[in-house]
């Protein structure tokens, strides 16, 4: 238990936020927790939140690692479109399901490799390097689909979007499995620490023998792979690849999830679990707005307000203000933060 305690304290703000939002929704919508099984699949609003949140959660896994290296990956939305288009193209061309999935996932890896190459080998700032693919990526996706929305009816591929395994929707399983695998790999080996080291000081970690170049490329490739999974889910969900709208602005949601998860945009320490909870918070807000009968137009404004609040809490200025006003600098309090806005 003593080992778990710091971890719980780390994700406590995110858990509380999620609980408050869920509480608000269930207050306004009493049937919130009803979960039923129909056609061998779970139904209910919490399941829906998990299901709809899966693509952003997947993106958030890769994005957390990228942001931990002090980078950013703006291209994930476009990569989603590319991989969704690849999957739809493969299946309509008559390739087997395994071959199609392999092609889509390798497309994601290649995109990640490209981003990683620009950042790690050419030394271009991540925001600029990934901007290239963000601009060109949708063009590439349209090249694959030849400008049309490629639809398909392959049961095996559709399974990834709207199927279910042991009554749990497939996207949720993929999201949980990817999250667990990533956490295991990153936290049970030294990889996580090395990634944090890169984010805190690239030069120092290179000098102390970390193979930063390979590691950076690997991180961007992970992000590409996660985007590929999310792209396959998104395409399978609508049974078609829409090069223009698949994953549109999801990169921003993914970044938002990471920021809500408390990982600093300035690199360094990160928490995958907190980012995943962040993704759930975003989806819970989306669903809550839809359920509560608020016009969905308010969604963006609420997101903006959330970003602003987090920015204020995270900012170095605010931290120094809090430390200045609190008698116990070590415990830079959570409660006072709200009251000492200058």
């Amino acid at each position, binding site marked *: 238990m003593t080992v778990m305690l710091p971890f719980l304290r780390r994700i406590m703000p995110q858990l509380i936020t999620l609980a408050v939002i869920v509480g608000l929704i269930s207050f306004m919508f009493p049937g919130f927790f009803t979960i039923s099984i129909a056609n061998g699949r779970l139904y209910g609003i919490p399941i829906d939140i998990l299901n709809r949140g899966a693509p952003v959660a997947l993106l958030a896994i890769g994005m957390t690692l990228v942001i931990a290296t002090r980078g950013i990956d703006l291209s994930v939305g476009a990569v989603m479109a590319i991989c969704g288009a690849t999957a739809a193209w493969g299946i309509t061309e008559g390739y087997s399901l395994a071959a199609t999935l392999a092609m889509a996932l390798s497309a994601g890896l290649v995109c990640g490799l490209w981003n990683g190459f620009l950042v790690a080998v050419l030394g271009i700032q991540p925001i600029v390097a990934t901007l290239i693919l963000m601009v060109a990526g949708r063009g590439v996706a349209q090249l694959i689909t030849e400008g049309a929305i490629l639809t398909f009816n392959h049961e095996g591929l559709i399974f990834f979007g709207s199927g279910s395994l042991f009554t749990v929707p497939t996207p949720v399983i993929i999201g949980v499995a990817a999250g667990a695998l990533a956490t295991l790999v990153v936290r049970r080996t030294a990889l996580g620490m090395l990634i944090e080291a890169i984010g805190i000081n690239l030069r120092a970690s290179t000098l102390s023998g970390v193979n930063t170049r390979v590691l950076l490329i690997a991180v961007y490739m992970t992000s590409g792979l996660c985007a590929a999974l999310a792209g396959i889910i998104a395409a399978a969900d609508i049974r078609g690849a829409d090069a223009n709208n698949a994953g549109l602005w999801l990169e921003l949601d993914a970044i938002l999830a990471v920021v809500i998860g408390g990982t600093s945009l300035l690199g360094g320490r990160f928490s995958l679990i907190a980012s995943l909870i962040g993704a759930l918070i975003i989806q819970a807000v989306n669903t809550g707005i839809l359920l509560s009968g608020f016009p969905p137009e308010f969604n*963006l404004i609420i997101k903006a307000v959330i970003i602003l609040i987090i920015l204020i809490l995270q900012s170095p200025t605010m931290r120094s203000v809090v430390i200045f006003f609190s008698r116990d600098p070590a415990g830079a309090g959570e409660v006072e933060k709200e009251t000492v806005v200058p």
Partner: protein
Amino acid sequence: MNARLLPLVATLVIFLVAYAICYAQYPVMLSTRVIGNLLTDNAFLGIVAVGMTFVIISGGIDLSVGSVIAFSGVFIAVMLRDTALHPMAVFAMLLVLTTLFGAAMGATIHLLEMPPFIVTLAGMFLARGMAYVLSIDAVPITHDFYDQMQSMYWLMPGKGRLTLIGGLMLVVFIVGIGLAHRTRFGMNVYAVGGGANTAALMGVPLGRTTTAIYAFSGLLAGIAGIVFSIYTSAGYSLATVGVELDAIAAVVIGGTLLTGGSGFVAGTLIGVLIMGLIQTYIIFDGTLSSWWTKILIGMLLFAFIVLQKGLVWTTGKKRAAGG
């Protein structure tokens, strides 16, 4: 030759070569009609790109401009529909609003010491959300004053039309060039981009400059919104999605260093024209699909970023060698 001028020269050469290729295939390309349309069609992008140039020279980024343009269009359309105000009065209100919006973002970036990227991301959501709240549907603009503005043009030799909005873009570029190279504010922007700490030590008022830069970008986004509403005669909250990326691409292709501290407003004009030229060529060709625009712009972006990287690297090496 000055290494700083090299990206600008490269942009100019690419533009001229591209134009020559277009001309070789379609001699009509050189007519003032095509040039007039090039200016008109890209007017809003050019105006917003001027603001983006200042932001990027200062080492920042402004992701909110596309949303601000959409908000401006919806705001104008809704105000003209629901009130009896003259468009000019609406324009004035709008420009005050967008300038304050930009200033607020700049102040937030400075006060909270947060990356401009995430602050303007919040601004992007906020502006787009406000546009949605005003109206989800497209609102047409029907006003005599708008008809007048749309029919205003100067007939260039060769029957080309320099429209009001095309001319406005050129004026904004001239003002931008003057502001960047002939004023204290311009000097401060370059200084902040070269190094915020150094600039502060030299006595550049960091807070005021940052706020002013983003306020200027907000003002120009507002003007671009007005231009876009004249161009389309409507306000639509889903319009101009992704224009911030086009603007950033134009600035980079125009030879401005994304790390800040170096760049030219005039280069951005050529960057905008190159992007417009690609689009015009694709329309002329007729068989190529519009997605080639995105891929070509992505490739140009890549080429320029690598060129910049190479320049920084070689100058750094020279400096190291020369001591």
